[in-house]
């Protein structure tokens, strides 16, 4: 693979969006950045700007109000991009899936590449999801 394609796999900048989570998964996502887990080992940086992001990590259920914001953030990210749905709520709506104001999981609004189950999802599982997503990206880049 060329240097530019290798760089895309070795430098995944991550953006975290809380769609309406109870904050359990958010705390676990931020725990990945602490010295215990240190995701910067993989070149991952947590950025606050979708124009700089390569991976979108979404926690919580989607409802009609935040669905627009989620679509807006997703559309601002440059291709190729990955979306990771974190936690039971992000994957399917979790225990709130029957609620009248809940649309369901993240995949009701934007395409999801990797699902991370758990309530809350463990930091190890979130890191594993990013690495799995990068494997998927590598396959796409090699095929192109």
């Amino acid at each position, binding site marked *: 693979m060329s*240097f*530019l*394609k*290798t*760089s*895309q796999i*070795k*430098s995944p*900048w991550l953006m975290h969006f809380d769609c309406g989570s109870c904050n359990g998964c958010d705390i676990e996502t931020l725990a990945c*950045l602490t*010295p215990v887990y*240190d995701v*910067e*080992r*993989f*070149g991952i*940086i*947590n*950025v*606050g*700007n979708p*124009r*700089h992001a*390569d991976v979108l990590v979404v926690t919580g259920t989607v409802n009609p109000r935040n669905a627009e914001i989620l679509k807006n953030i997703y559309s601002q990210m*440059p*291709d190729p991009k990955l979306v990771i749905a974190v936690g039971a709520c992000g994957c399917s709506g979790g225990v709130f899936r029957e609620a009248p104001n809940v649309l369901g999981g993240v995949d009701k609004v934007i395409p999801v590449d990797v699902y991370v189950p758990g309530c809350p999802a463990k930091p190890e599982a979130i890191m594993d999801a990013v690495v799995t997503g990068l494997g998927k990206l590598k396959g796409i880049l090699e095929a192109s």
Partner: protein
Amino acid sequence: MNLTTFYLAVAGLILAPLLGGLVAGVDRVVTARLQSRMGPPLLQPFYDVGKLWSKIIAPASHWQGLFVRWALVASLASDVLLAAGADVLMCFFVQAASASFVAVGAFCGSSPYSKLGAQRELFQLLAYEPVFLVAILCMAKVSGGFDAYSFMASQQPLLFKLPLLIPGLLFVVLVKLRKSPFDISASHHMHQEVVRGVYTDYAGRDFALLEIAHWADVVVVLWICSFMWATSALSMVITAGLFLFAALVIDNISARLTWRHMLKVVAPACLILATANLLWLYME
């Protein structure tokens, strides 16, 4: 201009950005170690720039591409001037022009964070440029000339006659590394109050070019700092390394300094110290 100067200028043009990238890598690894983390690979900044270069994204404003390229040209020109042994004062002004282009480009964007970052970039220029200017004047007074070769030719380290410049130069390194204060125009620290400040609206290839311009800027600043002990090439590298390490330590132990503190306290204090050193040299 003789052929040797030409070769040195070309070497400066090619090696300075590469060295700057390595400095950024060392910075990230050392910072991680100071925080009990393992940190990214040494070459991570090169991967980041490679990744940004491969991303195609519409610019926030069509003017930004122009200003980014001018910023890159000015930053590389300041490296070339230093490598060719030209006037350090000229190098300083060209480097300041680069920072101004970045700010003007950020003003062209639509994001309020970008505009706020651009304003803070101008505050930064206001804070550190006078200190840096007086520091260069002090160095020129001691070494007897403004060209880089005079600075490097002094028999005795400039530090012995310019001890009061150390806080000022450290302040310049901290600001140019985009380290502390945390709410500076484009801090590397995540989750700061203005997102990525002056860099918010730059993305893709423009952002990659800006990173390279930033590396070139850092090399210029560390190079000028290394004149403080320029008795040999090795001593210059060690001096630059010490300035870098001191900046990293200060950044890690002062997480809550704000830009107001920088403007109201640090900049005046450093300017007074540097000016006192200059007056002392004239009265000697």
